[in-house]
């Protein structure tokens, strides 16, 4: 069964440094998402992406965050200047979403654990 893959599984970065989290969505999917889960808290929506542009973003997704689909397979999340509070598990998801009533759920990767020192 096709799956969403995320790399790296664990990223350790100094505060203030830039970090890029990578995701390869399922190949025929058109809608892409990032979520995060701070340790001990609920999973939170960050951003959705379709047709090479952001569809919706949460208040968490400020100017320090950006997303990109640089080629036909990768979907990346960049944090420009990391803060301690960015430490979390980041999940990528994708869905085929072929229309309003497509009935297609989101499929998640295993996540990248980001640790800011």
């Amino acid at each position: 069964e096709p799956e969403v893959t995320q790399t790296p599984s664990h990223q350790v970065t100094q505060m203030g440094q830039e970090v890029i989290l990578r995701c390869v969505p399922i190949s025929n999917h058109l809608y892409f998402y990032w979520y995060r889960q701070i340790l001990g808290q609920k999973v939170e929506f960050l951003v959705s992406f379709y047709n090479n542009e952001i569809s919706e973003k949460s208040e968490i997704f400020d100017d320090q965050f950006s997303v990109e689909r640089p080629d036909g397979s990768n979907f990346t999340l960049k944090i420009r200047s990391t803060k301690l509070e960015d430490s979390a598990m980041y999940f990528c998801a994708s869905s085929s979403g072929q229309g309003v009533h497509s009935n297609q759920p989101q499929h998640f990767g295993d996540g990248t654990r980001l640790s800011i020192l």
Partner: protein
Amino acid sequence: AQSVTQLDSHVSVSEGTPVLLRCNYSSSYSPSLFWYVQHPNKGLQLLLKYTSAATLVKGINGFEAEFKKSETSFHLTKPSAHMSDAAEYFCVVSDQNFGNEKLTFGTGTRLTIIP
């Protein structure tokens, strides 16, 4: 705005006994509801989904959930727990129609299976 409330942060059952994980939702529209499971150090796996068709939804690994509009509930059940069911379970509601929706997660219920 959509929201879900998972009423129990931790549930423990003995192997072979029934499982009940409770979820209540709040929605301004007809919701789409899901249960996802997260095993340790793994991603979120879809167990089942409700999409305004049958109110009793069957999922993988013997789990099922019943959508009850009058009670705004979507509880997850399994007749007989297995050791491999030990994991974190999330009740999730989608904010819009399928295709480009943002998911809103509950706080999760950790299921422990007692041998």
